[in-house]
């Protein structure tokens, strides 16, 4: 009876995951979808704690279990509540790493269990005692979980600026070799004297961790969202290995679901940047291509004063704001909203043009502007925005660079060639706010800044906006 209730719990869990994911992919239902999945998860967890039994034995160690749940729950909630909106991507990366580590630890305990049971038998092989399929699920969980953990930690470090991009010649070959070493170590562990198998197992895990680091190291910081999404699906597969191990259907459905959806999402993210996954993973940004594309003649750019800008903007009919990472760094979303309200009160139409990969994550700008209560209807997606630029008087670019770089259209040598961009040049005036003339994330010059329509205004986005608001009020 109790076991059939547990089965029911797992069934509910699996179904809520599917429904939750479905609802998450629609803006109107997304929030509820998240809650539905969370509710299903809670049911599955509580069911496991109280109803699970193996060989007629219930689970024990309740103080440990509840202690762990409490500690993890409190830290998780606090971390997730405290984190700044701009650091969300890092947070997701950390949580993903935790899931990967969890899967690897489960495998480690299960392996230890096997080792302890059979180590007394001298000069026997591990393969004499356990089925290849069983071993496969354990070692796959350990390897994939470790890669995901190590990779996520590096991705987190890169996003928060603690880890710099690092690559060397022939790195891809080294990575490939490392992967082969990990896989052979896994096979070797299975086919070797059981007395050494635990050492071999931990060596395999250790090398998988190193592989995870090497895997993410050469990939540019701007591509981290794609990498996190990929590692996310890895962790899903690692969780599914646990599902195989315990013949547990909710782990299997949840894990594979995320594995498949995560992989597709990764590909969709790449598509939004008009790049292939292979291109992202092999890494082209910051590499040799940059040197070729960057050395163009630098024309002269012109600067604009705040008061001029205030005049142009207040007498415009339509202003389009193009936010980018600079806005996020400067935390200027509230100032931006204030400017929008001020201009609207003067009868200026203000809209935002959101490039799908502006900022460091897809949707980064939407989240940021929504935090400042910018109305959802004012945010235009790239296609809509491109239709409206020709009727726009002033485009204000706040800390965006690569997403407005015309080289993506005109220069086949450019590393971002082919990426869809915002056609800001169709507008009458373009004002670019940047901190300096330094190139953006892709490391390439932007000809837009040297075009006659373009004026530059250097400085921190928040300060510039506040000063600008002051100027407009004084008009």
């Amino acid at each position, binding site marked *: 009876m109790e076991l059939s209730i547990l089965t029911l719990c797992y069934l509910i869990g699996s179904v809520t995951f599917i429904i939750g994911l479905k609802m998450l992919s629609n803006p109107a239902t997304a929030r509820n979808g998240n809650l539905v999945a969370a509710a299903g998860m809670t049911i599955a967890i509580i069911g496991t704690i109280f109803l699970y039994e193996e060989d007629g034995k219930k689970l024990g160690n309740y103080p440990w279990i509840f202690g762990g749940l409490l*500690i993890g729950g409190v830290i998780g909630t606090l971390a997730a509540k405290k984190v700044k909106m701009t650091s969300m991507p890092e947070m997701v990366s950390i949580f993903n790493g935790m899931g990967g580590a969890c899967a690897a630890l489960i495998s480690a305990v299960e392996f230890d269990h096997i080792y302890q049971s059979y180590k007394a038998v001298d000069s026997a092989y591990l393969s004499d005692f356990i089925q290849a399929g069983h071993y496969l699920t354990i070692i796959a969980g350990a390897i994939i979980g470790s890669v995901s953990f190590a990779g996520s930690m590096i991705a987190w470090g890169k996003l928060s600026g603690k880890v710099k991009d690092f690559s060397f010649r022939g790195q891809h070959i080294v990575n490939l070799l490392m992967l082969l070493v990990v896989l052979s170590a896994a096979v070797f562990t299975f086919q070797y004297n059981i007395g050494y198998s635990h050492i071999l197992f931990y060596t395999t895990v250790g090398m998988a961790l190193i592989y995870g680091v090497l895997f993410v190291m050469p990939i540019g910081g701007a591509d981290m969202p794609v990498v996190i999404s990929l590692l996310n699906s890895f962790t*899903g597969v690692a969780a599914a290995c646990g599902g*195989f191990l315990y013949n547990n259907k909710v782990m299997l459905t949840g894990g594979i679901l995320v594995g*498949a959806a995560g992989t597709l999402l990764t590909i969709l993210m790449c598509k939004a940047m008009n790049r292939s996954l292979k291109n992202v993973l092999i890494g082209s940004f910051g590499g040799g291509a940059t040197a070729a594309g960057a050395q163009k003649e630098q024309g002269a750019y012109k600067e604009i004063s705040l008061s001029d800008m205030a005049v142009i903007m207040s007498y415009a009919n339509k202003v389009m704001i193009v936010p980018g990472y600079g806005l996020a760094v400067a935390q200027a979303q509230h100032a931006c909203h204030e400017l929008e309200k001020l201009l609207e009160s003067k009868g200026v139409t203000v809209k935002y043009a959101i490039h799908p990969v502006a900022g460091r994550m897809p949707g980064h700008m939407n989240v940021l502007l929504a935090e400042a209560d910018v109305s959802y209807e004012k945010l235009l997606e790239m296609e809509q925005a491109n239709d409206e630029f020709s009727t726009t008087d002033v485009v204000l670019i706040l800390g965006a660079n690569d997403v407005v770089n015309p080289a993506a259209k005109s220069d086949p040598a450019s590393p971002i060639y082919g990426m869809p961009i915002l056609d800001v040049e169709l507008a009458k005036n373009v004002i670019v706010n940047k901190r300096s003339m330094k190139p953006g994330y892709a490391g390439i010059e932007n000809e837009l800044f040297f075009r006659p329509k373009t004026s530059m205004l250097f400085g921190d986005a928040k300060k510039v906006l506040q000063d600008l608001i002051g100027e407009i009020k004084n008009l």
Partner: protein
Amino acid sequence: MEAILNWIADNQQMIYIVILMIFVGIEVIGRVPSVLHTPLMSGANAIHGVVIIGAIIVMGKAEHSNYVALTLGFLAVVLGTLNVVGGFVVTDRMLEMFKSKKKGSK
């Protein structure tokens, strides 16, 4: 060869689930708008936190004298919970931002 066939026969239910779930996973998010990529990733991140169930089982089965299993299991439960709870809360916060239509406090 025989071992593989046996393994497939023994686990056929699970294998069916894997194959079906791959298609469901792809189908379900096929038409997601790009603005939702990040929250969706975060939500999926929370869902693979089901790995916590494995951690609970490992922890619950551990014998009292087996300190390796106890320690690793405990760590697994903590990390798994972080993944689940943190994942869902972060996703909720992201999505909350999307629909705040009321008058802002700032």
